Structure formats: C-alpha cells, structure tokens
C-alpha cells in the first residue's frame, strides 16, 4: 500500500479509537494487527512490542481497578495494545525512504522537506553516538556529566547544529539544490487498490463501532 495513504489510514484509526469506548473495536484492531505482524515482522520484534507494552498496561489496569472502575481499565489496556500493534504494522513494512519518496512524488511536498525529514531521521543514530562520546571525553578529563549537566546539552546541541549544516552542505555537494527538478529511480504510485483498501477498512471500522 502507498506509504502516505497507509499513514493516513493509521492516523484516522488511531484518532477514532482515542475518542470512542469500544473494547470490541480495540480487540479487533489488536488481533488483525497481530496477525499482520506474525506474517511480516520478526518474532523478536513482536515479543518486544507485547512485552514492553505490558509494563504500562499493568500499571494502567491496576490504577483503574483501585478506583473501582476495572472496565475502564480494560478499555485503556486494549486501546494501548491496539495503538502499539497498529504502529508496529506501519514501521515493519514501510521505510522512511518510501514515505519521503511518496510525499515528494505523489503529494507534491517540496523535496527539501521530504529529504530534510529523512536526513534528520538518519542523524538520530549519529547524535546518540555523539552523546556517548561527549560523556566519554568528559570522563577522561575528570569531569562527570550527568543528564542534567548544561555542558552535555550545550555540546549535543552544538553537535546537532554542526551536523545539520554539514548535512545540508553534503546534500548540496551531491547536486541537491532547492527547487531544482529531479528524476526518480523508484517510482512510487498510488494504485486504485490503495484507495479501495483505505475506504473498505475505514467503513469496516465504522460498522464495528455502530453494531
């Protein structure tokens, strides 16, 4: 399915389950997403998603139970799982490159925005490593930075700013110029079936909600 339409579908579903109180709908979304994940995602990832979510889920459930409202607790827990597995179905099959490509090619979003998002996304790892290195460098100088040290923030912001300028320069050096036209190696299209899936899924959700 087209990455942007898929994202749109996810957002609509997420919004709907946020404002409705149907345990049944949450369960249906959870089960469908889980089946999807079993087919397309790694076993490790599924276990990770289910297990990590368990911690807040238990917390929420007991908090509501203490208030004497265990039904509401169940609603929140199923909603939480529906959110997590739904999100999981998106990230397991869709890459940020495809999303950026679709935004640029199908939805006429300026390419600098599409690639900017992607560049920033690729920078996350770099920035994480920078933070580890900053702390390491400080230790060698007998300075111990904690997560509240201004130096750590100053240095990491500096690193991020530095990297963003360098990234812009780097993209520029490989001929990326704002507003200039480009060809596309991977054509991303919106198929009729993509619209059909979108409409059918959304209608199905309304039916589950009403009946």
């Amino acid at each position: 399915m087209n990455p942007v339409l898929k994202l749109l579908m996810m957002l609509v579903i997420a919004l709907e389950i946020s404002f409705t109180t149907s345990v049944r709908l949450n369960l249906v979304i959870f089960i469908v997403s889980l089946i999807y994940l079993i087919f397309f995602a790694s076993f490790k990832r599924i276990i990770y998603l289910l297990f990590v979510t368990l911690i807040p889920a238990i917390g929420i459930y007991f908090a509501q139970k203490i208030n004497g409202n265990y039904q509401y607790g169940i609603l929140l827990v199923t909603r939480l799982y529906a959110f997590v597995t739904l999100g999981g179905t998106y990230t397991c099959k869709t890459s940020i490159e495809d999303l950026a490509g679709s935004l640029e090619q199908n939805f006429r979003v300026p390419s600098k925005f599409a690639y900017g998002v992607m560049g920033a996304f690729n920078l996350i790892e770099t920035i994480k490593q920078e933070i580890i290195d900053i702390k390491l460098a400080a230790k060698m100088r007998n300075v111990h930075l904690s997560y509240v040290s201004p130096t750590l923030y100053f240095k990491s912001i500096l690193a991020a700013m530095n990297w963003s300028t360098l990234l812009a320069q780097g993209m520029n050096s490989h001929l990326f110029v704002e507003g200039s036209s480009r060809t596309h190696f991977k054509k991303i299209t919106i198929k009729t079936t993509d619209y059909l899936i979108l409409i059918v899924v959304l209608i199905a959700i309304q039916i589950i909600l009403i009946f």
Partner: protein
Amino acid sequence: MNNLSINNLTYQYTGTSKPTFKRVSLDFESNQMSLIYSPSGSGKSTLLKTIAGFYPQYNDGTINGVINFNNKNISEFSEWQLRQTISMMFQDPMQQFCMTTVEDEFIFTLENLQIQPDKMNQIIEDALSFTHTNDLRKRDFKTLSGGEKQKVALSIIVAINAPVVLLDEPFANVDIKSRLELISLLSQLKESGKIVIGIDHDLMGYENQIDQLIGFDEADTTFKPLDDVAVFKLFNQFNDSTNRPLTSEVVGEPIINCSDLSIANYDMNLINHLDLDLIRAKTTLITGPNGCGKSSLFKTFIKQHDFDGEINFNHKSIRKIRLNKYLQNVGMIFQESTKQFIKITVEDELELSKKNAFNNWFNDKQITEFTHRLGLDELSDRVIYSLSDGQKKRLQILSMVMMGHSLLLLDEPFNGINIEYIAVVVDLLNQAKQNGQTQLLISHQTHGLENLIDYHLAFDNHKLSYQEAF
C-alpha cells in the same frame, strides 16, 4: 579544453580583523593536477570551499574577486549549474553522505543530476569500477572503513562527472597503499580532461604526479604557485627518510596484556586469537592497511567495543575495572578533535586540564612554554569551534597530555598538523613518557617521529606483530 581562473580573490570571516587570504590569483587548466600545500590554519580549506561556492553560503563571510570558468563568471551560474561544473570531495566523507547505503547515495546524486532511471545502473557500475569498489555497492556506510568511504566518495565524484574536481585533504585517513592507489586514480581523472585541485599537508606520493604546486605566502597572506627550486626542496624534505630501524625484541614490563583476544566489526573478523604485551613507558606505533581494525582496537582498549578473550591492564582484567575509574588511567586522543573539548575557549580548556590533571607531570612554566611553542598562546581567548583543524588538533593534544593518563592512546594525532609543529608534539610526548606515560600511536604520518617511537606493531593477517623498522 576548460580553464578555471581566480582573479584577486579575498575572503574574510565575519568577526575577524584580517582576511584569511587576499588577492589570490591562480590559473588551472584541463589535464592538470594542482596541489595546494601549506601549513594548517593558513586557510587552504577556506580557499577550496570558496572556489566550490560553499563559502560564503554556509558561513558568514565576505568574498571579493572573480572566479571564471571558461571566461564566464561563476557567480552568474545557477546553483545547480555551479555544482555540476565544480564538484568537491570533503575531508570527512561521512559529511557528504546523506543516505545510509552506497547505492542509495548514488541514486540520490543521480536523481539530482536528472539522469534517467534506466541509465543509472550503468553509471553506478562504471563509477564504482573506477575505484575497484563494486563489491561495496549494497553496503551500509556504517560498515565501511575510512579508506573504503573515501573510495566511494571519489566514485560519486566520478559519477557526477564535473569538469572541475576539488579535493579537501582526500587521504587524511588512508594508509600508504591506498594513498598511492588513489593518487594514481586522480592522475587518470586528470588525463580524462578534468581540472583536478587538491589540498594536503603531506606531500607523500605526489611527486611527479602534480603539474602545479601552490604554497602560502605568509607575508602577503596569499596563495602563489611555487617555482621549481622551492618544489624540489619541499619534496626532498619529505623523502629524506624511508626506513628507520627499531628493535623487535621488546623488553620491559607490560602495562597491557592481551591473551587470546578476538575483535570483530559487524560480521568482519579484525583480530583473531591475539596474544600481545604492550610495554610500559614506551611509545608503540601501530600501523596497518585501512579497515584492518586499528581504530576498533583502540575502542576496545577504552572499553567501547566488544571483544572475546582477555585484556589485562596492570594485571587486572579490564572487564572488572569500572569505566569511570579506568578512564582516569587510560586516555584517548580522538581522531575528531571537536569531540574532545569540554569548554568553549582555548584558555578555559587548558585551565581545565591543569586543574583536573590525574598526574601533575608539567609545572606552570612548562605548560606556558608548550602553549607558546604550539602557537596556542595567541589564541587563548578564541572560541575553540572557530579554530582551524590544525589549531584544534594542537590544543587537543596539549590538553590531553596535560591530564597525565598512565596510558594514552593517540588516533592519528598528526592529521592536519604541519611539519614544524610535529617536532613540538614529539617533545611534549617524550616529556610525558619520561614521567612514566605509555603511549600507543596510530599514525599514517611517520615523518619526524624518529625520536619518539620505541616499538612498531604492524597488522598482518588479523594479528599484530613487532617490526624491525617503521
């Protein structure tokens, strides 16, 4: 036949009182390779980025003068046209890649060049085969060594196929073998009709390959072509020493002992079942081809890389020493200087080292003397991030040596440092060594290090062994 001419080019950074260089007039032609060779901090990187049109776009500065390509002023070119005419390879290839894999970066570049998708595959294959790196096509940049990245960066430049190719210290992280290989590739590029302009602080391997050597004239703060006599003298200075004998019989007490050590990077084996002693209060040079695992070995020694087997520091397994405590004894000079700094100004940085030193090996007088000899005294109130690469490197080395670690790892500390300052750094390191410091050094540059190096370890076949020369 193309030509690039620079007329009366002056560049000044905002907030400085003097221009970095002024009235530079140079001519470059097709089938010509030129090299700009000058001390670090003289502004050769700035000159190159100005010619490429990155400055003043990416930093505040003022530019004066005219750059003509085939008698057309390049400031009248559209940005896309300019980038297509003048391509540039950066010093750190990672700063030039914005995708995660080699192939994606190629595709991104070719899309920007508006190449039709059906032609891309052939262009990518041809460009990669120019540097013999076709097998890297599907690889993630994170898994490539420094030299491999540089070869890929050069391949992309080949794919862009611009008439002017600029190279900013293209071989800073490359071993001698790859260096000679890459220089001969540049010659091929030049012979195909390109204008090739590089900057470097190391002349090794360029002899008989370059058509024009450009130096920096301190008196006029300008760049000028050097005459034959000056060129001859410079090359002689670089070629005087080739093989310097050492002993491969190591004696002394080990500070680090590795037994059955194995290190892998992703799925690549770097070191296999190594047994090795590193001797206390000596300087050991470590060399080996790109990607053999020198940097990974250093990362392992500062507990930032997984390993199998055992590493003992002062007879105690490093797995059992807490990181905080360990780093009081073991310090590392990173390849990338900016990572090392904690403070904002030069003065504060040195003050911090003085105050926090683990061992006070240097008294105030000696510190002042080294600060002066490294040319850092006149920079004391400067913001570190505004310094040139060479100045940063000198500051970084001094502030780390002052800390007095009993083991200091130095990863390519001489990158960007020119020959006069190398002697000062050698003095500084020798003084620390007399106080009992053990030094492990990774360096491609070995000129001027005769008085420093005690032992030489070379990588071969996933092992390290002591050599009889360096």
